[in-house]
């Protein structure tokens, strides 16, 4: 976990490998069996050309990165906003990175604004977004 953050602090990255088995496990855990995720014969006939990972699986990885870096504050005071630019597919290796862009204090609370990106192994951006995490002022 980061002990101190400031503007420009890089959040330690997370790297995950996407497999169809992982996608199927997530479908079972979440109850989301949309065939675009789990049915190759269906997915191959769509414009996406094959199965894709659940967006919420990628968000789980982003959330894990934030929690590992920033601790419990992320679980009760985190805010996340992302856009899915490209799908993550079985066989992809995704790397999630983040950076603290600014820290603002208001009414005794510090708000760290972070930019987030998720790339695949071709260095294509698949998810882009922002996160905000709040701390008691002076504890960031």
């Amino acid at each position, binding site marked *: 976990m980061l002990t101190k953050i400031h503007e420009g602090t890089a959040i330690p990255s997370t790297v*995950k490998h996407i497999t169809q088995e*992982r996608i199927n*496990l*997530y479908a*079972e*855990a*979440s*109850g*989301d069996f*949309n*065939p*675009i995720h789990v049915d190759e014969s*269906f*997915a191959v006939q*769509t*414009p*996406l050309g094959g199965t*894709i990972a*659940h*967006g*919420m*699986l990628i*968000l*789980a*990885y982003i*959330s*894990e990165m934030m*929690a*590992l870096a920033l*601790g*419990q504050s*992320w*679980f*009760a*005071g*985190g*805010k*996340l*906003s*992302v*856009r*899915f630019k490209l*799908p993550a597919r079985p066989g992809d290796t995704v790397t999630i990175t983040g950076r603290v862009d600014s820290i603002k204090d208001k009414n005794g609370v510090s708000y760290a604004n972070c930019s987030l990106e998720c790339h695949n192994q071709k260095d294509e951006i698949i998810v882009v977004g922002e996160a905000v995490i709040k701390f008691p002022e002076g504890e960031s």
Partner: protein
Amino acid sequence: MATVSYEELIPGYEFPAVSYELTSSLISKYLRAVDSLNELEVLRKFVPPLAIAAYAMAAMAGSLSLPPGSIHASQELEFFKLVPIGAVINCQAKVARKLTRGKLHMLVLELNVFDQSNEKVQSGKATVMLPA
């Protein structure tokens, strides 16, 4: 459970609320599915917020019939409080907007999750893109 189709939805439509007990076995299954590093002390007692978001989405999806191939376009989430393993959450969702741009149809859904004390633990907004 009866399902409602995209065509039937109107802004303001509220999906039936669904409650979940976040048992340790349910959360263990989720953590295995997301390949959690499980290095966080907090995960021994509390539910990862994305698990709650996943169940809130599932609660809504259970009563919504979207065309196969619908995909997630964007997501906003805000986490307000720690939720202990074993807690019961109540997931509520409603249609915020329906958008049509040419052949493209999008649905914006608002999600709110409350604990047993009726305190909000999480809120979010999901945008789903439907196949043309």
